[in-house]
């Protein structure tokens, strides 16, 4: 397995994955378990792509492989090279802020990891704190923030390193329904302002359709891509769009794809 950084000029793919495979061996039974089976994926610069699927389909695993947190057993990933800093930055599922750091130190942390001095990292973090709507909360500690605000800080930390691609691992999964809807709209606003490529992992159909240019649908056992659907809905999008028939058609189309996979999901594991 290799993670390459594309060097040739004129490359327009922020991410390109070929045959990414992830195998585990069950310690007790010794059976091979395919968490990911030959996943191919291309994401052009500036696109918003969602990976959608039931739990166990390997969507989060794929994201962690791209991020370098997990090593795949086979395959190749190319990331668009950026002038400086990291190619990719992760927005974690649970906000995963350090409780001992204030908001500004948490947001600055990605830069500190890249070798930027703490002082400079702090000052570079400030505009991103403002961008995600946390102005005035820079000196608060995570326990003083609501779940939604923690996720905003989580997002700001990833934005601050100014990577080519943003990896988002179900960042709104633990939020209540209203906050989640608000954060979806907020994310689109920030995405438009920050002009990032986004790979967004979710198990919520409406979330994926609302946010994305493309929804990549995955199935479990083995984890694999079963469809890649372009969402031709106009931008900028607002939450009202979720009530339109076009939106409902996309939801229904994707739901049908996933429902087809359900029997295998409930079948006993061989």
């Amino acid at each position, binding site marked *: 397995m290799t993670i390459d950084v594309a060097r040739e000029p004129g490359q327009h793919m922020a991410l390109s994955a070929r045959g990414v495979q992830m195998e585990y061996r069950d310690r007790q039974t010794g059976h091979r378990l395919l968490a990911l089976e030959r996943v191919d994926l291309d994401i052009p610069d500036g696109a918003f792509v969602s990976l959608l699927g039931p739990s166990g389909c390997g969507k989060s695993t794929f994201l962690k492989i791209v991020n370098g947190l997990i090593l795949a057993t086979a395959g190749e990933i190319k990331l668009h090279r950026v002038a400086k800093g990291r190619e990719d930055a992760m927005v974690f599922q649970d906000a995963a802020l350090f409780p*001992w750091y204030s908001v500004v130190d948490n947001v600055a942390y990605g830069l500190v*990891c890249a070798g930027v001095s703490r002082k400079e990292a702090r000052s570079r973090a400030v505009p991103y704190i403002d961008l995600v709507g946390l102005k005035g909360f820079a000196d608060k500690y995570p*326990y003083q923030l609501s779940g939604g605000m923690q996720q905003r800080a989580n997002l700001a930390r990833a934005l601050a390193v100014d990577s080519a691609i943003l990896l988002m691992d179900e960042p709104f999964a633990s939020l209540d329904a209203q906050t989640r809807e608000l954060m979806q709209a907020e994310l689109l606003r920030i995405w438009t302002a920050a002009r990032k490529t986004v790979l967004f992992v979710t198990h919520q159909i409406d979330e994926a359709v609302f946010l994305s240019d493309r929804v990549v649908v995955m199935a479990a056992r083995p984890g694999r891509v079963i469809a890649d659907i372009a969402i031709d809905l106009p931008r900028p999008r607002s939450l009202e769009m979720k009530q339109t028939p076009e939106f409902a058609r996309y939801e229904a189309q994707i739901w049908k794809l996933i429902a087809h996979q359900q029997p295998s999901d409930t079948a006993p594991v061989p």
Partner: protein
Amino acid sequence: MLGVRNATLALSRVNERLFFGVIGFVGVLVVWETTAQLGLYRKSLLSTPSAIWRAALTDFANGSMAPHITTSLSEFAAGFAIAMAVGIPLGLLIGSFRRVDYLFNGLLAGLNATPNVALIPLIILVAGIGYEAKVVVVFLSAFFSVVVTTFTGVSTTAARHLDITRSFGGSRWLAFRTVVLPSTFPFILSGTRIGLGRALVGVVSAEIISANQGLGFYISLYGTFLDTARVMLGIIIFGVFGVVIGEGLRILERRFEVWRPDLHR
């Protein structure tokens, strides 16, 4: 409005705590003194608060108490400082490197399980009965709890927090400084607190077994004279030590752990 009401509530709660605390304390003294004066038991058994007070006044005034306190304090401080200086770094190393863990874990577990008092005769043989021997006893008493809690803290560092440094490409050393250390800090503090208690026990036991100065010596000396007032006085001074040190630690905790909500309630 709400803020004002909360503030007064907190204030009255503090006053309430102080008020009842004092009542409890004074109450015990009054019951102690009256039952003794009424002759419900022999005064020489438990002494009385007034007799202890008189003994304290005499011994502090004529300067016979001061050297005992300074001796105990200095043995305690030296032994405890060494226990921290060796224990914390060793705990961090054991927690961070698997092989250092393998190297020391069995040894530490064995020594930790051995009651320290059992070692005192050996320590006297090796280090004599002077100041150094007491420092060694204090060190051994505090050392293990400091090491064990520190490495427990390191090894329970949340994987999701370590993932953040890795995800953003930070070095292992950066992860140690920015993740492992702060999340281990509460453990180090509680190890320190447990260690302080044990170190205090160490001072007393070492001084009672063999010494010619120190509070433990003071207690055992007057014990042999059946001077219970002075025995009680020595015990009370140790108690005050313990309380003052414990409170000091609590203040430190609040000062350095502003991020822990449970400390602000």
